[in-house]
Every structure is written in C-alpha cells, then in structure tokens.
C-alpha cells in the first residue's frame, strides 16, 4: 500500500533528528533508507512504526493519517535489528502470536504458521526455542513472524547487520525474492550501501536528518546529487577542474578536456567513478603509485596534478600498466558529474 511521509520532523530538545522529510513510497515497492548512523533513518522508521511520536508532520497509509493510530493498530510488520523474538516461546508460537492477536481461528492459524515457516525454510524448526537457533535462523523466524500477519507495510530495521558476510548475502537474495513474491511494500533501514544497492527499487539517501537524494539504485550511484551521496555510495574520484574559454567553453582537468555544459563557470570539482576511468593515449597525465590485484579486477592508485585517483580495471587478461609507470587517464563526458565549489569542501562533506 502507498505510504507517504509529509514534512515529518522529530526534535529532541534543540537537536533535530529528522528534519521535515517528504517521501512517497509506492505500493509494492522496496524502498531503502540509507545513511550513516545518526542520519535519522532509524528515527524515521520508529515514527512510521509508531514507537516515536513525530514533533511535526504526518504519516499517511493509503491516504489515511496514521499519526494518531496506536502502534498495535497500525498493522505493520517489523523486523528488529535484535530480532526481538519472544525467548519463552517456540518458533511456531512466536509466529502464531500476531495471528492470535488478530483472533484467527486455531485451524487457520496452524496452517498459516506452517506456511510462513516453510517460506523462510524453517519448516523443521517449529518447536525450537530462539535460544537454540543460530542468528540466521532467528532472523528468519523474525521475518516469518512479521509477514504472517499479512502486513500492509513491512519495516526492516538493519535486519542483516548481525549476520556474517556470507549469510548476509544469502539472506539479501532471499529477502528480495520473498518480497517480490508477496508484493509487500517494504521499507529497509540500513547503513550498508551494498545492501541498499542490491535490494531496493528506490534508495533514499539521508544525512543529518534530511533526504539527500531519492532514486533508483543505478540512478543514485551514477548521478549522485551531492558530494555526500557520491562519497557515501561507492568510491569516487574528485578532481579539481577549470572552465576555459567562452562560447564554446571547455572544462579542463589537466590534460583531459571536454565541452562544458552551458552555465558552468569558475573552478569546479568533477567526480568520476573508479571503474569509469580508463588508460588512454590522451588525457590526464598520471603516475601509477600502487597496483593491487583483487582477483576479478585490478585496482590502481594514481597521482595526478588534479588530485589522487583510484582506477579499477577488469582483469581481462590484457597487460596492465605497472607501478611507477606514467599513464594518461580518460573517461567519457557522461561518466562525469560536475559540482561547484572547491575540492576541499567536497571532500569534507
């Protein structure tokens, strides 16, 4: 179901945790609130869940105002970071709890609990207590418990952060599949950019209580709206550049240049992703300071007159420049984003 946040704000005394955010999440989509700790993403989720009362603003579900609705009446499914399973109940009892609260009949309840546990691959663990289960299994029980009540919206609060890397990857894929099959509107809160990129339909990047950018993972990654987004989502190279000449003006990064977009002037910062830079005959002169082999790709740390550069090249079996070698760096104009302001300001954000 559609969920909409309208100038949602949360203040604690003088500090503003969430600063008037507006967001509309389409029914059935998988939306991800991404940001560093303290950016207000968890506070936002807690307000949607109803555990925190907003200082200002409204939350609408299908046009209905949720702000005054008690958390127990919102009908949202929540998976907590600590899973928050009921330790004195078995897996089946944990999952059945929400159905009991909805006064679902015993026969239907048993059937739905069984189906939910089977969906997360825990059919054989019905009578197990949470303490006797591994972290991944507990996580699945928590997911089954949240989904069995057929929630209008599923809220996930850093659900994978307590799992080890391999299990986390498996669960990411599984989570995505379950979400696609059920079509439940899902809001995921995470600080892990990989998780956000691989799971969600839309990423909402947050910083200091504000939304920095909303877009598809690909959009957000390739066209970051701010220095913060560029730095936070993946790695990027910032070069200081000049704009030379007038009509047609050219943007010049050392030995690399291209026609400047209309209206751009003065010293600017251009940002290029490491995997979009190639070695070429012409371009920005650089020296390879270090070459690191990383299996399926090579990582080059280069020094240029416009600042340090990281270049990632696929390990395609072709000869690669060695350490200390002089090279020239080039990229397509489309792969570059231009920001005003000095390089230091960009790096600080």
């Amino acid at each position, binding site marked *: 179901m559609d969920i909409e946040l309208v100038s949602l704000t949360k203040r604690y005394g003088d500090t503003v945790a969430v600063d008037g955010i507006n967001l509309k999440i389409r029914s059935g989509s998988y939306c991800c609130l991404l940001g560093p700790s303290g950016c207000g993403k968890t506070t936002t989720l807690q307000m949607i869940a109803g555990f925190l009362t907003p200082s200002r603003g409204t939350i609408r579900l299908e046009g209905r105002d949720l702000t005054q609705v008690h958390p127990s009446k919102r009908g949202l499914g*929540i998976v907590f970071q600590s899973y928050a399973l009921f330790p004195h109940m078995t897996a089946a009892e944990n999952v059945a709890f*929400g159905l009991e609260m909805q006064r679902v009949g015993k026969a239907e309840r048993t059937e739905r609990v069984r189906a939910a546990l089977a969906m997360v691959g825990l059919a054989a663990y019905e009578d197990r207590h949470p303490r006797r289960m591994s972290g991944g299994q507990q996580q699945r029980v928590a997911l089954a418990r949240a989904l069995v009540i057929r929630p209008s919206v599923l809220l996930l609060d850093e659900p994978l952060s307590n799992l080890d890397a391999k299990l986390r990857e498996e669960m990411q894929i599984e989570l995505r599949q379950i979400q696609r099959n059920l079509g439940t509107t899902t809001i995921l809160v995470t600080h892990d950019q990989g998780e956000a990129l691989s799971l969600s339909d839309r990423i909402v990047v947050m910083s200091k209580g504000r939304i920095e950018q909303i877009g598809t993972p690909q959009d957000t990654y390739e066209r970051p709206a701010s220095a913060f987004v560029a730095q936070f989502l993946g790695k990027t190279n910032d070069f200081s550049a000049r704009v030379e000449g007038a009509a047609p003006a050219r943007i010049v990064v050392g030995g690399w240049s291209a026609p400047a977009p209309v209206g751009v002037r003065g010293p600017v910062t251009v940002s290029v992703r490491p995997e979009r830079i190639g070695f070429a005959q012409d371009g920005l002169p650089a020296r390879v300071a270090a070459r690191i082999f990383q299996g399926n790709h090579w990582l080059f740390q280069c020094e240029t007159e416009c600042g340090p550069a990281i270049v990632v090249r696929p390990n395609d079996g072709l000869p690669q420049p060695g350490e200390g070698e002089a090279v020239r760096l080039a990229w397509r104009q489309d792969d570059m984003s231009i920001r005003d302001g000095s390089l230091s300001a960009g790096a600080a954000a």
Partner: protein
Amino acid sequence: MSAAATTSLPAAAPTTVPALRASRAPLWLILPALMLFTGVVLVPLAMTVLLSFHDWGQYKGIEPVLILKNWQEIATDPYYAEMFGRTLRIALITTAATALLGAPEAYILNRMSGRWRGIFLLLILGPLLISVVARTLGWALLFGGSNGLANKLLMSLGVISSPLPFLFTETGVVVALVHVMMPFMVLSVWAALQRLDPQVEHAAMSLGAGPVTILRRIVLPQIMPGVLSGAIIVFSLSASAFATPAIIGGRRLKVAATLAYDEFLNTLNWPLGAAVAVLLLVGLVLIVVGANALVERRYAEVSP
C-alpha cells in the same frame, strides 16, 4: 633458528615444576575458608543433629544418649504440628505478598527515568540499612494496642472504635515480614527485567498486542524466573526469621525459630530445641532445592 630451538628446550623444562605447584595452589587457597566453614558451620551442625537425639530432664539436665524421645514428642504432640504449620503459612503468605507487590514495583522502577529510578531504588533498599529489630519495633509503635500511634489516630478520627489487632497476630507478623523482605523480591525481579530486550515489547505491540496482553504474555513469563528465585529467598528467610516473629508474635504466637530459641534459653531443653531447629533446616533445604530444580527445568529456555 636451530640455536633458538635448543635454548628454548632447557627453558621449557623448569616451567613444569611451578605449573604442578600452581595446579595445587587453588586447594591451598581455599583451605582457610574451608577450615572456617568446617569449624563454624559443619561441626556445630553435626553437634546440633547429635544433640537432638540426647535426653533431657528437669533435674538431670542433658544426658548424652541416643534416643528418639524429642522426635517422638514433635511427631505426636499437635502443638508442634500447629507451630510448624503456622511457620509454613506465614512464610507462604509473606512470599506471595512480596511477589504480588514486589514484581509490579520492580517493573515500574525499571520503566522510570534515570534520576527517579535512583531515588526510588534508594527508598526500596533503604530499609535494608536499618536493623530488622528497629524496623519491626516501628510497627509495634504504630499498632501496639490502644497506645499505638496509628491506632490512636484512627480512633480519634472515628475510623475504628477499638484498636486494630496487630501485635500477637499472624496478620501483624506477615505485614512486618513483607516490609522486611520486600527489597529481596524487588532486586531479584529487577535483575530479570534488566535482561529483557526492550524491543521485545515493541515487537509484541506491532503484532497487535495491547498493554495488558504484553504484560501477561510477554513480560511476565520472562521475569518469572526472577520472581521465583526471589520467592525462594523470601520464603527461606521468612520461615527462619527470628526478630520479627519474636517482637510482633511474642510468646503467644510462636514460630519454629522463636520456639527453638525458647527451648534453648528459657526451658533449657537443648535437645528439644535442637530437634526443632534441625527439622526446620531439613524442611527448608528440601523445599528450596525442590523449588529451584523446578524453576530451572521449567524456565530453561528463558534464562540464559
């Protein structure tokens, strides 16, 4: 490389001797405590058990023989059955009352904000800093017949026409004991509440549970081990309490501890007093061990 290996060999050999000595060190370290324990607990306990089989007469005093006279007297005289029954009843009611009052108290305490929690924790623990005798005498001053402060006030206000019976009543003993024992229950439940994941209540709420359901189905089962271990402490302390029953119950309302005391110091029938004391000890150990085993089996999944 080889030089390092040869020098390390002789160095390794001497370390085995201190290692052997170190393995015996714990035994030596517990020896003083063990001697103290044997000297002041085990030996007197064995002597008390032995004493309970001795004979006693008004004029002949204690005779070191092995007979079952004292045990027969306790088993046949209904006075002892009544007295042990009263001890058990007082301890059970006190335990139930501290659980019913203390568990909610601990829950509320746990939900308070930092500063208030500190103040109220001090209020709850405060009584522990005052002697049991002083606290119990306080109750006697408040409700001691028509001279009791509270009784006088209530009578002058016309709430009651005659002083509330408190001294020498079971109710009085229970009220005073509940007051004395409350901190043990609150602390025990509080410890259990500290282990509770605060998000668990949120999880239950999000699944549609109201506040009463959350308390009954989520919080209570998880703090039950704390309530039960508190109950074991309160029960054993109440059943063997001496000062409070002695002051409030007096001579008229005897419990096991005060009876044993009287046999020892007033009647001078040490063997009978010893038999009462041993029976109280054995009964308590059986009840506490049994209850503890029950708690551990029943709540194995909840307690970490």
